């Protein structure tokens, strides 16, 4: 598929497939089209050509079953809403219009919060949490939603070790339960820990396949240009500024 903003195509000729329980890491420099790809999977951007099928449906029709975890620092920290209320938002589509979340929804929200280690902060205001904790709350929201496909936009950016560990653990548990994962990241180590496959992008697909084969010094150099530094030991380090 190809996705365009205005006159320029942000992404061309990308195709990938996520099986239930599978996980694909989207690797590429800033502006490579990682977020664009995630938004296309959500059906939030018009496609220039090609098609996206999510859970066998059009992306617009599948959104209820797709969890989207964005970076928590885009949200207003002063907003008067408690942690558990944020997690409950994940249940809203299942609850439906005109009705309030019931006891079962609250239980699910609390379980999701417990899974990310924040059950004791349920009644605190969202903005009083640290950046990593807020990110975990958004993950809990996706868990509570009961999504079958999880899309994560740079979830590991600038996070503390506890949060990274919990994220890795939770993603492994969700995959074991058959949830598909697509995650954009700069962090190659995290990509190896959480995903079986990788798609290296830079406006187009550079490489795609099992993570060990897709991420090679050659593909990284192609995607990142001079910012991929090949070390003497054979490892590749990507320098980023975001």
């Amino acid at each position, binding site marked *: 598929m190809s996705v365009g903003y205005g006159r320029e195509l942000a992404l061309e000729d990308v195709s990938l497939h996520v099986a239930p329980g599978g996980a694909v890491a989207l690797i590429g420099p800033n502006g490579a089209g990682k977020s664009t790809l995630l938004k296309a999977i959500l059906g939030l951007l018009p496609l220039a050509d090609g098609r996206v099928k999510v859970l066998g449906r059009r992306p617009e029709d599948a*959104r209820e079953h*797709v969890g989207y975890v*964005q970076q928590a620092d885009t949200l207003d920290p002063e907003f*008067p809403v408690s942690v558990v209320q944020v997690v409950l*938002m994940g249940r809203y*589509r299942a*609850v439906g*219009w005109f009705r309030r979340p019931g006891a079962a929804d609250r239980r699910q929200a609390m379980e999701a919060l417990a899974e990310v280690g924040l059950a004791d902060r349920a009644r605190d205001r969202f903005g009083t949490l640290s950046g990593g904790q807020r990110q975990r709350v958004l993950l809990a*929201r996706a868990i509570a939603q009961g999504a079958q496909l999880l899309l994560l936009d740079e979830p590991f950016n600038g996070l503390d070790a506890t949060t990274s560990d919990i994220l890795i653990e939770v993603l492994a548990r969700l995959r074991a339960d058959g949830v598909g994962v697509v995650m954009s990241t700069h962090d190659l180590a995290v990509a190896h820990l959480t995903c079986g496959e990788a798609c290296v992008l830079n406006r187009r697909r550079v490489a795609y396949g099992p993570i060990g084969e897709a991420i090679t010094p050659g593909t990284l150099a192609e995607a990142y240009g001079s910012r991929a530094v090949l070390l003497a030991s054979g490892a590749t380090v990507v320098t980023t500024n975001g």
Partner: protein
Amino acid sequence: MARLLLDPFRDAYMRRALVEILVLCGLAGVVSVYVLLRRLAFVGDALTHTIFPGIAIAFVVGRSLFVGALLAGLASAVLLTAATRIRRIDHDAALGVLVGAFFSLGVVVVSTRTSYTADLTALLFGRILTVDTTEIIETTAIAAAVLTVLTLVHKELVLRSFDPIAAEAMGYRVVLLDLLVNALVALVVVAGVRAVGTVLVIALLVVPGAIARLVGERVGPMLVVSVAAAGLCGYLGLAASYEASLNYGVRLGSGSTVVVALTIAFILTAGAAALLRRRGAGRAAPGAAVTAAP
């Protein structure tokens, strides 16, 4: 004291004014919280101006002002929603243009009449003291409709205010939710503008929510505080303007007295909140240092 608070409402016209003010304050108190959450202060203010041409045209052609305001209100809600979605033009600029264009249109229409000045004044001040039972019924009907809709879509509106990207990702049509809120705000303006004037409507849409946010940390309690603050100030403002004009010979417009009461309430609340926080911060500081350690 009791005399000061009860005496003004002996007369039937003052009782009608009180009922109208209280219904409006209750309605606006609730809507004001959503205005705060969605940051719609400018949209609310814009709506008080964009409804004007509807009233002006209805006035000039001799039709019901209520219907004129209603049509203009709903039309401008649609236009304002559309204007804030043009990506090439800054939202605030689009609103500024609409305010100028609509209001000028109203003034141009009214200025073809000779009673120009008096009509404009009535629109600004409102004429709460001459409110009749029909108007109270109309206001109450609007209030009931708006509050019912808000109850039904409360959770979706809060989600959209807090996290529009997630709302869209979950499959909500954000533009429809925005249109709905703008239409509800427009209805509040329609309900209030004839009785209490644009000045009071702007204030009622912004100040109670701001007071509530100074006090409350959650949406639920904020709704309670907002309605209480609006109702109390409405009551006190009306009583004070009556008292001033009857016993002291100072003619204070009732609508603007209510707004001044609201503004004073805001200043007092802000002062009290700042004081409390300073004392609270002094106490909490050592504890905070400990919890920050791990």
